[in-house]
């Protein structure tokens, strides 16, 4: 095509996600480009990463890859990425992206990736009828309040916390707890900067204590449960709360539930914003056609129109902070507000559980430990010790 060719490797393969990527494809093809789709789902992108490695080693990398967080830097260090800084400069991405996010997109100061959305990880979902039945009148704003509410729910025979026992879900809850207990500072020090002192601090112990408590609020059969089944529990009133990123909203909406009426959304305790963002990273392709396509694609991704349509389909909010949110729902609006506030207060932190904060190798150690803690009777002190040691080892 006149506007180049792109091959896009991603793991948004089914339902709403696929539709969302479809928007990008349509937009790209509207500019006479040729879109080659390489969708590889599985393991939250693990399968796609596997394929990516094989492709890069074989010497035919895709044009753009759904790749995020520190992974971008890791690949960049291998020297296999292409810069799209020209596009970024001309469109002034720095001005419209949250700085935390913008840093993640850059390698040595140049943009090598473009974000498509912002997911908030620290969401708490609730069933108002269940809360009512237990006499909980409002969404908790501290973990103590949460514990109190949970105890009430338990008393009336409702599972307080719907949870799926998969490592990444455990880690999601964990990082939300850390944010709630230690605030953005601890979060940043411990989970992003990997400061040994912070990792071994009393606050971390407290966080593990809270996590241990929450383990008690989970039903017996949580192990291995998919997150959407946990969402279903909340939907049906079998459980009171679920702590999960804003993609859970899609599940409610798909079932025809109305925010504020059939379900409630509120941030987890702590005045922060745990950021998860999907982005497309640009690999070193050869041939004018492909390079041209790459540049066009970068511009397209960051265009406000695309950001709006895409995120409407995906259930997240635009990565650009300047996009109008008129057609978005209440939860999304709340998310946006909090985002701006968090940027203001320096309380915006990248998600550890969702690969925004630290290299995958270290994240792996976190997840191993957290999930092991959650599924055993390890003490909080022990957990903190092992965690610190494991992180040190992996660095």
């Amino acid at each position, binding site marked *: 095509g006149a506007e180049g060719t792109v091959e896009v490797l991603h793991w948004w393969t089914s339902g709403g996600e696929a539709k969302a990527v479809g928007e990008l494809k349509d937009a790209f093809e509207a500019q006479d480009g040729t879109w080659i789709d390489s969708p590889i789902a599985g393991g939250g992108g693990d399968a796609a*990463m*596997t394929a990516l*490695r094989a492709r890069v080693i074989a010497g035919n990398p895709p044009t753009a890859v759904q790749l995020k967080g520190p992974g971008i830097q890791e690949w960049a260090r291998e020297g296999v990425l292409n810069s799209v800084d020209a596009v970024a400069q001309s469109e002034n991405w720095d001005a419209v992206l949250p700085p935390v996010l913008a840093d993640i997109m850059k390698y040595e100061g140049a943009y090598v990736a473009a974000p498509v959305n912002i997911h908030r990880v620290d969401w708490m979902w609730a069933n108002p009828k269940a809360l009512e039945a237990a006499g909980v009148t409002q969404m908790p704003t501290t973990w103590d309040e949460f514990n109190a509410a949970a105890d009430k729910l338990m008393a009336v025979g409702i599972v307080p916390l719907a949870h799926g*026992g998969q*490592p990444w879900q455990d880690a999601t809850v964990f990082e939300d707890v850390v944010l709630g207990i230690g605030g953005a500072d601890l979060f940043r020090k411990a989970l992003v900067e990997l400061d040994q002192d912070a990792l071994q601090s009393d606050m971390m112990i407290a966080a593990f204590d809270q996590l241990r408590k929450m383990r008690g609020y989970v039903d017996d059969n949580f192990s291995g449960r998919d997150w959407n089944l946990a969402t279903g529990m909340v939907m049906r009133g079998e459980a009171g709360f679920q702590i999960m990123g804003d993609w859970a909203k899609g599940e409610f909406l798909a079932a025809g539930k109305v925010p504020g009426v059939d379900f409630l959304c509120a941030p987890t305790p702590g005045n922060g914003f745990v950021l998860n963002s999907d982005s497309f990273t640009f690999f070193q392709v050869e041939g004018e056609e492909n390079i041209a396509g790459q540049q066009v694609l970068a511009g397209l991704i960051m265009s406000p129109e695309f950001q709006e349509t895409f995120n409407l389909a995906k259930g997240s909010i635009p990565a650009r902070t300047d996009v109008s949110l008129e057609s978005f729902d209440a939860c999304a609006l709340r998310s946006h507000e909090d985002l701006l506030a968090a940027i203001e207060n320096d309380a915006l932190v990248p998600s550890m559980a969702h690969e925004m904060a630290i290299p*995958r190798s270290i994240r792996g150690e976190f997840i191993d430990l957290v*999930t092991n803690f959650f599924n055993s009777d390890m003490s909080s002190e022990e957990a903190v010790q092992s965690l610190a040691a494991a992180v040190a080892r992996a660095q």
Partner: protein
Amino acid sequence: MAPRTHSTVPLGQKIELWLPRFVVSPLFALSLFFVYGFILWTVYISFTKSGVMPNYSFEGLSQYERLWATPRLYVALGNMFVFSALFIGISLAIGIFLAILLDQRVRIEGVIRTIYLYPMALSFIVTGTVWKWILNPGLGIQNFVRKAGFEEFTFDWLVNSDYAIYTIVIAAVWQSSGYAMALFLAGLRSVDDEILKAAAIDGAGSFRTYFSVVLPIMRPVFLSTVIILAHLAIKSFDLVIALTGGGPGYATAMPATFMYSFAFQRSELGVAAASAVMMLATVIAIVVPYLYSELRGTKQ
């Protein structure tokens, strides 16, 4: 048969004599390169600091040190032994048993055979979900039995760290024992009838006929089946991922998931390579003596 060669043999005959070797050698060469070459590559990588991509600067044993400090490794190795032993044992037993039953002039054999075999055709990505439901205490069997009136019945292996590995055995046996059955059935069908007749005359009951006449003849089939099952056991990956995701915690981690997660989730190729080397070493230690005894035994 390998007649000795002699310089006066015409070319055509010489080719004939060497033909078996000509046939085997390219395949052997492929195997040397694609198996042993790659193993060597892996061994080398395990001594480097490879992360997201291979890196060829030598680093010594540091990856092994990391590996050995990882508690998950020991869980994975332990699971491999428990799982392999149970899985291979049970699948062999069921395979033989069903093959023998199906060999009893069962008219609808074709249907039953396909039923036993079909689980292998289904991708475990989906059947894993179904098993997860069936084994989930709140949804599946436990729930079902309790509703039927047995309030005290518990079957919560799936969510119990100590027993979750056995649920993987259940699902794995479900998936593969049908194929073991097929292998044995094919073996049974190639045993000469006359020998079965002789056994009938010798007064052997069905049980004895199968166990002391037929199965010894099928010794090579055992080798095939054991190798196949061992292969499945060692490489069981989909199964664990789909059923338990390695959980609860990492209670059901296996070498294959361990390796995969280090290589591709955590971008630690070096550690992954080191674990692969360790696993291969373990496999060699077990398989080589077995192969040796089998190949000696089947020579005649």
